């Protein structure tokens, strides 16, 4: 077990944890999105570590990371579009006020 790998994995784990904390605890839509960014970042770190220390010859690892990056970008774009629409409709993007779907 390489120490490098371990360090990278622990970093990924920490980012993941922080990201979950942020996504669940924030009231603002944009902050939630930041939390999601951090989760994805943690996943990316893990992937790169696995590629580098376990299968460096196989470019599929890097491919996966590329895809995640693309997805991150798209997710942000759509998310901000929703935030704009919400802001126009209600004047704020606070998720605590977004209870129209209450059952």
């Amino acid at each position: 077990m390489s120490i490098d790998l371990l360090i990278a994995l622990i970093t990924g784990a920490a980012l993941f944890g922080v990201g979950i904390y942020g996504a669940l605890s924030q009231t603002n839509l944009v902050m939630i999105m930041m939390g999601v960014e951090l989760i994805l970042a943690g996943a990316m770190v893990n992937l790169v570590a696995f590629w580098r220390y376990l299968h460096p010859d196989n470019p599929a690892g890097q491919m996966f990371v590329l895809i995640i990056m693309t997805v991150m970008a798209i997710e942000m774009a759509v998310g901000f579009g929703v935030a704009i629409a919400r802001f126009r409709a209600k004047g704020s993007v606070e998720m605590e006020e977004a209870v129209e779907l209450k059952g």
Partner: protein
Amino acid sequence: MTAQMFFIAFFGLAAVWFGIAVFRTYSMVRSALALLFSQTALGAMFLSMQAEFLGVLQIMMMATEMSIMAIFMVMFMMDPGGLSTMDMIHQKRLSLLAGIVSFLAAVGVAVFVDWGPVEMIAPDPAQQTIALGLELLGRSMLIFETAGITILTSMIAAISVAIQPVKQNTVPTITGSNHHEH
């Protein structure tokens, strides 16, 4: 303890620190900037792990994205400067618990699993890029084709969601009714 290991550890720590800082500050802009730094540290980490292409890409993209995010922050926040000290957090204990539990679970997995033999030699950056390109045009062609269409769709969707409703015309139509476009 090699230099590589040290750099990985350093940049990793920086990423985590800035990540925590995102949620500890009251100012929105500072949150955005903290996130920016966190992502950049991550890019540096990639570079130190000899994934040059990815590292560069990460730094470039994240810089742009975080700047946009900062702009949106300013647009939408009622208190972008963070001058009020209101704690905008809900279900704090639950989220803390969730975060810690997931962290510990991931660490446990990382520590207790036998990952097998570790290769310490990574290929050349040029060779990496060539291999990546071949991979892209070979096996992963389908993925990126579909990804491309999906991206296009999402872009259109995002634009249509964000578009402003059309203002009412003063020119009367034949039916005499005004209709809203959305």
